[in-house]
């Protein structure tokens, strides 16, 4: 959709800063497309009869002809051109979708290459670069695909085709090959979420049906993720790919193959480092938890990995990490818990004392989780000493009263869990604080003495300040 240049509004500066929306309106370019066509010549397609109006024997041939017609591409940048033909293609595509859904016996060997060809022509294209370098996936509106009226139907058609009862992978695999899959994967970078959603379904079905392509698909997804994490930090389809991976991980056979474990450690965990984590965190956390449910022994490397990449400056991410950690703890086995508890609670202790109240709040809320509480109870003699000093300190010092109230809940829980240890720790804490205070006072005294000494020296020398 091209947009005519807007006359800039009279007031475009508020508080000395130009409003972002105003900036965007001025800069909005028309969406570009890599599918250039020669301008001028209108497209003419001979209208074909409807499939339902034709006797059964002639349908396969007609079907092929319609597929052929749908290989013609239209320019949606120009909203006024070829309107009649665009409508014709749209209704043809619609018809094909229905036909594929209900028909029997139309899938011959000849149909496969034609179908794949039509789909390839329509969907495979170089994606336009994003509007500006400042495109923030979390905040800005995505640029939608202009040719969606046709594109959607092509995707719909392809999915029905793949899901059809008569579909035979052994024939299809000649045409749906690695090259096809590679081009499909590149499309996941589309800005249009609707397209990505369809692509997700398509790839999911292909993965399911083409056993021979599975390893290739996994490898390519790995490459995409690794490039994303370590090179570009730009890819729009991470969430969708992770969703597919979720269903794959869920179906892993036990014992887990080494390849999959490597994937977890080398790809999934580093994915947590990325700045735009919020866009795909839910799906990522799901994958991680699925892995742990498959093989609990992976818990230790996962938690160590998370702790290694724990965000240090981004509180929003920290809150996400805490959420994910709670989900992991929800499924953790007690033996695994014991292995990681010290490292874990050292980090939690830091989170709880964070001056950012949302981080502290989220961490404190762990104590409302029954299962986590039962684990803490069993190991209170190890955990309580780690948590104690920060809890006690923030009960006195935190600026946020709501946090202080939550700390009371946690401390009370600890008191009831292990009163003897709690009392010991209180006593130690108090004596430590007293010792610190004493040292401070001594230091103050020392400085004062030094000052007095200087003054005395100064006075003796008749006010000449000694060098």
């Amino acid at each position: 959709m091209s947009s005519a240049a807007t006359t800039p509004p009279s007031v475009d500066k508020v508080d000395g800063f130009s409003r972002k929306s105003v900036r965007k309106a001025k800069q909005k370019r028309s969406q570009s497309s890599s599918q250039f066509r020669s301008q001028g010549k209108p497209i003419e397609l001979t209208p074909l009869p409807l499939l339902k109006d034709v006797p059964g024997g002639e349908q396969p041939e007609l079907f092929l002809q319609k597929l052929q017609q749908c290989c013609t591409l239209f320019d949606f940048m120009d909203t006024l051109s070829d309107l009649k033909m665009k409508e014709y293609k749209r209704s043809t595509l619609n018809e094909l979708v229905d036909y594929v859904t209900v028909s029997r016996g139309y899938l011959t060997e000849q149909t496969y290459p034609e179908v794949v060809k039509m789909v390839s022509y329509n969907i495979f294209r170089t994606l336009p670069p994003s509007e500006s370098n400042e495109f923030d996936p979390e905040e800005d509106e995505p640029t939608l695909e202009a040719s969606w009226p046709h594109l959607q139907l092509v995707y719909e058609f392809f999915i029905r085709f793949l899901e059809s009862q008569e579909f035979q992978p052994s024939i299809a695999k000649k045409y749906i090959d690695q090259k096809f899959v590679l081009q499909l994967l590149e499309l996941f970078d589309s800005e249009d979420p609707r397209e990505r959603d369809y692509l997700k379904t398509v790839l999911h079905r292909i993965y399911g049906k083409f056993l021979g392509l599975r390893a290739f698909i996994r490898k390519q997804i790995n490459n995409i993720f690794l490039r994303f994490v370590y090179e570009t930090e730009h890819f729009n389809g991470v969430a969708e790919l992770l969703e597919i991976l979720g269903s794959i991980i869920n179906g892993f056979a036990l014992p887990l193959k080494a390849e999959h474990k490597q994937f977890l450690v080398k790809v999934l965990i580093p994915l947590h480092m990325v700045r735009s984590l919020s866009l795909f965190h839910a799906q990522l956390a799901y994958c991680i938890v699925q892995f742990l449910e498959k093989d609990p022994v992976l818990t230790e490397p996962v938690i160590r990995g998370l702790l290694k990449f724990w965000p240090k400056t981004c509180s929003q991410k920290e809150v996400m990490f805490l959420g994910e950690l709670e989900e992991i703890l929800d499924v953790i086995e007690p033996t695994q818990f014991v292995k990681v508890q010290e490292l874990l609670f050292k980090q939690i202790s830091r989170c709880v004392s964070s001056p950012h109240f949302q981080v502290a709040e989220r961490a404190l809320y762990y104590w409302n989780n029954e299962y986590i509480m039962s684990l803490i109870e069993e190991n209170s003699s190890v955990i309580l000493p780690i948590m104690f000093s920060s809890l006690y300190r923030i009960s006195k010092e935190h600026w946020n009263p709501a946090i202080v109230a939550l700390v009371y809940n946690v401390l009370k829980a600890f008191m009831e869990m292990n009163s003897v240890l709690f009392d010991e720790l209180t006593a130690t804490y108090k004596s430590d604080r007293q010792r610190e205070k004493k040292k401070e006072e001594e230091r103050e005294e020392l400085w004062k003495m030094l000052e007095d000494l200087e003054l005395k020296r100064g006075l003796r020398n008749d006010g000449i300040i000694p060098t």
Partner: protein
Amino acid sequence: MEAFKLMRELKTNFEQESIYLPREKGLNLLETTLENDKQISAKCRDAKVEDLWSLTSFFGYSTQTFVQAVNLLDRFLAMMKIQPKHLSCIAISCLHIAAKLVEEECNISSSHDLIRISQCKFTISDLNRMEKIISEKLNFQCKAVTAFTFLHLYHEITLLHTSERKPHLSLDKLEVQLKACLCRIVFSKAKPSVLALALLAQEIEAIQSVDMLEISQCIQRHLKIADGELLYWRELVAKCMTDYSSPECSKPDNKKLVWILSRRTAQNLHSSYYSVPELPTIPEGGWDESASEDSCEDMSCGEDSLSSDTEVPCSPPSFHQRTSVPHSQDDSTHLGAACHF
């Protein structure tokens, strides 16, 4: 003559302690009452005292504050018929009064904080009114002679008469034990001097110091405390200590505490990862499927780097695989078979 002064102080306190004893009849009534909505039972009182202990710890108040608060509470409960719904208010008021008596001005938490942290439902004016009522009913004799007083005196006396190289008698430990005892209403019936002596004797026995034992017996004779009485309380103390230090922890009753979260955090909790995935599970495997021979050829090209295992199939798929998901018969067409969610 330090020792002489201490002994005299001991005698003075001893003579005064009966003023501050809660009425025995009242305490008995509490003990025999069953739990119901109209009357307070011993169990209620004990639970409330435990709460006071938590609050004392939390606000950093001293043991003396706690002991004073419990004393005020017991005296008040023993003389008045209280409805359970007022118990919180009374307990917090006692704590506040005690804090004002004992703690330094700067360390006393405000009424507002007290109410907020203890998650009580009454207001500051309620609290102030209750404090007045309690003080009046107790004839403004708020600062009591308690077991705490005696404990300190005994400890000082003992230390005075023993050399430092002997096993250490820890006052902190005694204080904690006292707190644990006060959580049970039965100990409120004891005379403070006797209770303190029982605790002292118990601890001395534990550390096995002959010298200190002599001193405690000396004190007992000085105050003319009967052997039978002392023994009776020592047994109860011993039992209480066993329960207190047992490794079995009482499961924290989280239901009583309210977790108030900010709106944003609460929202984030609900948008958890359980956005149910729409994609059905794809079971792994299928190397022993009929299609595998063909897949052999396809596999050979893509399989270099990431799969480190030797699983690239070109060998007959005869190995046995355990799948965690019911293996669907015909992988190629029936995809939706293993959909979990």
